[in-house]
């Protein structure tokens, strides 16, 4: 899970989930805590989905 997807692609990560921002990849301080946690959950669920998916080489799984 990373914010700068081109870097993850360059270093060869196989399953990549783009995240929100560099200082808060799995959060957004502009949201209220409940919404923020829901956002985080959505990203993590996408990561679990990526782990359960067969991939060829490299694949980016967009959550938001």
């Amino acid at each position, binding site marked *: 899970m*990373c914010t700068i997807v081109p870097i993850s692609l360059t270093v060869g990560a196989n399953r990549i989930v783009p995240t929100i*921002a560099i*200082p808060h990849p799995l*959060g957004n301080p502009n949201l209220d805590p409940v919404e923020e946690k829901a956002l985080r*959950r959505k990203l993590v669920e996408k990561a679990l989905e990526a*782990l*359960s998916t067969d991939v060829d*080489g490299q694949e980016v799984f967009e959550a938001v």
Partner: protein
Amino acid sequence: MSKKKVVHYINQFFAGIGGEEKADHEPEVREGVVGPGIGINAALGDDAEIVATVICGDTYFNEHMEDAEAAVLEMIEKYDPDLFIAGPAFNAGRYGVAAGAVTKAVGEKLGIPAVTAMYVENPGADMFKADAYIVNTGDSAATMGEAIPALTSLALKLLKGEEIGTPDEDNYMARGVRVNYFADDRGSKRAVDMLVKKLKGEEYETEYPMPAFDRVDPNPPVEDMTKAKIALVTSGGIVPKGNPDRIESSSASKYGKYDISGFDKLSEADHETAHGGHDPVYANEDPNRVLPVDVLRDLEKEGAIGELHQYFYSTVGNGTAVASAKKYAEEFAKELVEAGVDAVITTST
């Protein structure tokens, strides 16, 4: 005869605007030289001068790459420059990515000579060395004194349309371009000469360095997530409050292994970030924003995953050598396998 016009690109830090807290600075352009442009301008001598400096925050550029690149390009184009220079970015990752991206875009879209400079391990180097001239620098701004002459030397050659030598001769990163030439000796003789040197234990130089293929085949997917043991690993530097192992904020020389068995979520009271490469305030306020323990605990309780592994592994990715990162991962990957972990979520900032 008037001097050739150069436009220079730098980040918010070298422009003196600010550090991490200003990394979201939107693109702007200023007349003349700013920061390291002063030294570069002096080194350009009578041949050229920097007429404008484009400045952009590193985080802003990386989080809005398309828009930022377009905005920066428009600013550069207005000056109708003869040459473009970005950086030097040394080992600053976001800066290197921005400098590389803009240098490539200027070369392709404006069709003028363009050059940047950074340390070989900068992520921007691998990403852009095939598309842009990137001069080699040391890993920190402490080497600015050597970087400027190296950068301007290649820049002037490009400006004047002079023949560019090999990567070694002109100190830039190999772009994967193969140039044919007639050797004095035929191939068979050169091969035997090289073999004789090798047999004698003498130094020899390969004519074709093997590329470093660092690709890994993806592992097969997890079959049943409800039974899977998931572990968290991060380069975002999340550590117990007080950073007991003193993991460095940059160029980490170690990683930590931390127990989260008692935790339903992380909080400001018990954890913090050691990462020095971005504004730490959001990660310190709520460490779950980098290491999502809260959400994984919920998923564990709901049975969506089998188990959240009791240990997480953490280091700081900021400026940490690739070789070090590889070494740490090789070590703790063994522990993860022994602990029966089925899959790992790695988070980075």
